[in-house]
């Protein structure tokens, strides 16, 4: 440790803890931690991380401070409204502890920059506010083998866990997808802007994230590994789940860096899981806007003949083997009634993962012809 008087005094009360001691302090000073999101969770976790002497803290957030943030994002003041959260948080924290390195990234974490950024840090803390970021961060941490301190809140309840970390070397670690394998569909789960959140709740959960991070880095206590803690601020009840690695979870995560960078997490979270089906109207819209590859998966010679739009025919039995190479990032399959095309969509999804957007025309070509002809007659 830097034994200058100020530094010694700054950390003296935690160095005094015999479980933590000077060795624990040294570990924190040498550690690099990335806080993703300088919102309610970040504003709670960050001051304790900076104060405890984490040697290098990165803060990434592309958002700016709004008045409606201030009831829970307590690092900011009314003077910060309209300014970068990451930069304002870094400035406040640097005053709290000038002896550590704090780096602000006023940008959005995305598949293009996530791996390069996360790679530089020892522990990643998820303080984001949306599912596409959460699944992306989880998958990046699995690929990079980085411990992830997860926290999330809704109304009066918070969830907390340490993912991707094994207490016993060689043991399978648990990640977010072992708990919730696939993202929910849009609108399924309301966010804070929709359902509200008690301001002090992210303060509690964010502080717990800082605590888990400090435990992981210093080696004290029992971090929430293979456990999910759920805290209810209304009745102070704490519920814990025991988590285990699930077979098949790894297949949901991109195989490597290249596949990760091609994954469209916003899209993954914008459609219901395995809900490939689109209506005749949506089909028409996508046909014009996305210029998709359209495939008729019926057998040769099946009626009715389709000559209203360009398409190719590959019978279901030949999907996906006979699929030609295609630059289209959208593929729509159809059949007579929508049943075979749904099977085809599943097969294509297994082949392409999230690299392509796959859709199946609900109700098949019969329904499409009926709706289009019906509408034509009416207009």
């Amino acid at each position, binding site marked *: 440790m830097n034994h200058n008087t100020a530094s010694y005094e700054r950390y003296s009360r935690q160095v005094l803890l015999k479980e933590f001691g000077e060795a624990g302090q040294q570990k924190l000073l040498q550690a690099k931690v990335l806080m993703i999101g300088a919102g309610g969770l970040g504003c709670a976790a960050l001051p304790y991380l900076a104060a405890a002497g984490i040697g290098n803290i990165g803060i990434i957030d592309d958002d700016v401070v709004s008045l409606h943030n201030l009831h829970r994002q307590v690092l900011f003041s009314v003077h910060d409204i309209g300014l970068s959260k990451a930069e304002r948080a870094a400035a406040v924290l640097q005053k709290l502890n000038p002896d550590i390195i704090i780096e602000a990234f006023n940008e959005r974490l995305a598949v293009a920059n996530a791996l390069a950024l996360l790679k530089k840090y020892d522990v990643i803390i998820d303080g984001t506010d949306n599912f596409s970021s959460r699944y992306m961060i989880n998958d990046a941490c699995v690929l990079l083998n980085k411990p992830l301190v997860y926290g999330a809140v*809704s109304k009066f309840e918070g969830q907390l866990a340490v993912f991707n970390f094994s207490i016993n070397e060689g043991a399978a670690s648990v990640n977010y997808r072992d708990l919730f394998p696939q993202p*929910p569909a849009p609108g*399924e789960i309301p966010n804070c802007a929709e359902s509200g959140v008690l301001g002090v709740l992210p303060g509690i959960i964010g502080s717990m994230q800082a605590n888990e991070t400090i435990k992981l880095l210093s080696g004290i206590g029992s971090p929430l590994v293979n456990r999910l803690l759920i805290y209810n601020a209304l009745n102070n009840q704490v*519920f814990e789940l025991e988590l285990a690695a699930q077979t098949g979870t790894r297949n949901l995560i991109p195989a490597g860096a290249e596949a990760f960078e091609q994954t469209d997490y916003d899209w993954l979270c914008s459609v219901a899981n395995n809900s490939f089906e689109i209506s005749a109207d949506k089909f028409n819209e996508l046909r014009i806007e996305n210029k998709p590859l359209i495939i008729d998966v019926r057998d040769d010679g099946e009626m009715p003949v389709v000559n209203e739009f360009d398409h190719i025919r590959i019978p279901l039995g030949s999907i996906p083997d006979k699929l030609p190479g295609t630059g289209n990032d959208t593929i729509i399959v159809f059949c007579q009634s929508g049943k075979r095309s749904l099977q085809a969509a599943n097969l294509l999804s297994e082949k392409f993962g999230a690299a392509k957007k796959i859709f199946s025309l609900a109700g098949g070509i019969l329904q499409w012809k009926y709706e289009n002809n019906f509408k034509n007659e009416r207009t």
Partner: protein
Amino acid sequence: MRAKISLFGQLTDIAGNNIIVVDDVADTDALAQAVNKLYPAMAGIKYIIAIDKKPVHTNTALNEAVNIALLPPFSGG
């Protein structure tokens, strides 16, 4: 069997309570069906079922006195 179920997140809002009771459910598939029938708004929500504090991902038989919880994911931060 009669199942006493703890609810979390917005499932609590839908049911108007954080504990519900469902009758005649032999396994977790039957449980989900019964819950979704009682509270149709829950059918559209991706929650996990935990038995004795462990998430179950396949249909699992329910015995007497098991602790059942339904948990949705949270996104807020």
